[in-house]
């Protein structure tokens, strides 16, 4: 396979973010630039008996009625509230009007994996407590994985395709790839690509019991690439971008943030919960992302890392970058926003994209905060603790995890 010759250009024209450290793109970008963390003690459920107590929780400042009105909120579970609110922001930001004429040309594609767990747990709890004849029927629609994505289509009257991608850590970028394929095949003109996860005691305890949470074997801190790293701080939130083909964006006079450029993914499952020891899948994804663009390795100005403060994850990502970029790896700034927002799992990739748009738009690289103790195996330029003012034309965004799913994506300045 050679490089694509007559590629349709795809651009980003809208953005909505609800992150632990900021609601709305401006707040989010400001927080990242200032190195402000959204990680704090969990308030939504008790953590007594756990060795960890922190999370990247969306606090009570988030009021979905501000974005969606109060009607119909009663039965909208937390994940759908987060995603629909971010979608509303993105639609408004893109200046997109959805009507009978264009509704079939707009699709929705969402990355999410754990978000229905809370509803499933609540539904089951009632079935056990009150008996299966007296369950709360209102909880049932929210027990399915595609509930939140579907609610976006229902609420905003979108009649094009609606798909949910649940590939764990790489869900967001996999969702973006799926949406890009639809656009390139001319089966759709515009797609709302989203990523969402919500916190619940069930998923908090799942990561904890598997030993992935920071604080079990060390300091409870999200400190990617730092030698003290010992696990994730679990988080929640939603981010949605509006992508469309360049022609249609120009036709409607939309403001264009950036070009959706190369993308690649690879599944390299090794053993249950163990990383592929050579980061084969991540390397293959990065190479594929580069191959599908016209740019070379030296054109990458910044890498927005997947590193989440898990010992192996950060080490392997560093190795993958060095193996792909060779000596040039030492010239590329690499930072992890997960030091500030924690691990949002399936939504991670979309937050990285939202952050990278801000980097490109406002000319800065967000820092890796909490970086103090150097690890000899992690020896790249991690933009420690303070953001860096610089011009950015191309960003590489990585997603990988112990489940075997890997993805990489290149966001480029649009000219």
């Amino acid at each position: 396979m050679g490089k694509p010759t007559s590629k349709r250009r795809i651009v980003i024209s809208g953005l909505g973010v609800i992150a632990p450290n900021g609601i709305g793109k401006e707040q989010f970008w400001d927080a990242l630039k200032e190195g402000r963390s959204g990680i704090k003690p969990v308030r939504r459920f008790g953590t007594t008996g756990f060795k960890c107590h922190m999370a990247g929780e969306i606090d009570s400042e988030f009021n979905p009625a501000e974005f969606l009105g109060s009607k119909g909120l009663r039965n909208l579970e937390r994940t759908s509230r987060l995603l629909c609110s971010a979608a509303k922001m993105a639609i408004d930001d893109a200046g997109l009007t959805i009507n009978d004429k264009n509704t079939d040309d707009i699709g929705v594609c969402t990355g999410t994996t754990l978000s229905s767990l809370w509803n499933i747990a609540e539904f089951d709890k009632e079935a056990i407590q009150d008996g299966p004849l007296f369950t709360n029927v209102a909880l049932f629609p929210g027990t399915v994985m595609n509930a939140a994505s579907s609610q976006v289509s229902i609420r905003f009257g979108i009649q094009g395709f609606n798909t949910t991608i649940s590939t764990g850590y790489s869900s967001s970028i996999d969702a973006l790839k799926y949406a890009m394929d639809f656009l390139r095949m001319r089966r759709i003109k515009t797609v709302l690509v989203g990523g969402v996860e919500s916190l619940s005691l069930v998923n908090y305890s799942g990561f904890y019991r598997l030993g992935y949470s920071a604080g079990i074997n060390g300091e409870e801190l999200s400190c990617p690439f730092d030698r003290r790293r010992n696990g994730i701080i679990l988080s929640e939130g939603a981010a949605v971008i509006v992508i469309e083909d360049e022609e249609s964006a120009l036709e409607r006079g939309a403001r264009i943030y950036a070009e959706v450029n190369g993308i690649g993914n690879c599944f390299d499952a090794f053993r249950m919960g163990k990383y592929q020891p050579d980061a084969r899948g991540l390397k293959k994804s990065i190479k594929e992302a580069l191959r599908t663009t016209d740019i070379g390795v030296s054109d990458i100005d910044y890498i927005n890392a997947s590193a989440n403060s898990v010992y192996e994850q950060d080490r392997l990502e560093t190795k993958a970058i060095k193996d792909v970029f060779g000596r040039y790896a030492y010239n590329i700034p690499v930072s992890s926003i997960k030091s500030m927002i924690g691990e949002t799992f399936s939504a991670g990739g979309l937050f990285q994209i939202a952050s990278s748009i801000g980097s490109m738009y406002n000319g800065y690289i967000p820092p890796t905060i909490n970086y103090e103790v150097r690890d000899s195996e992690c020896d790249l330029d991690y933009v420690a603790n303070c953001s860096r003012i610089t011009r950015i034309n191309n960003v590489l965004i990585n997603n990988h995890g112990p489940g075997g799913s890997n993805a990489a994506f290149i966001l480029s300045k649009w000219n």
Partner: protein
Amino acid sequence: MNSNVENELRKMVAEIIEVPEEKLSVEADFFNDLNVDSLKAIEIVAAFEKKYRVVIPEKDIPTIRNLGQIVAYTKKLNIQ
């Protein structure tokens, strides 16, 4: 008619269909006057069943179209 039961039911239905209690008259038709969709209708039935620990037979469900008919149904079941 037991007004306590009526008030309890009005509160329950008003919350599900998201209308103020004072606007929920006994005669207002759920479907034609109050825009109740099928999911909300199922929710009303389920909430009623849960509250009074009864199961409403399928054949009875279409006959209940307003608050008054729900209250009448409780009388039929001897709910005080």
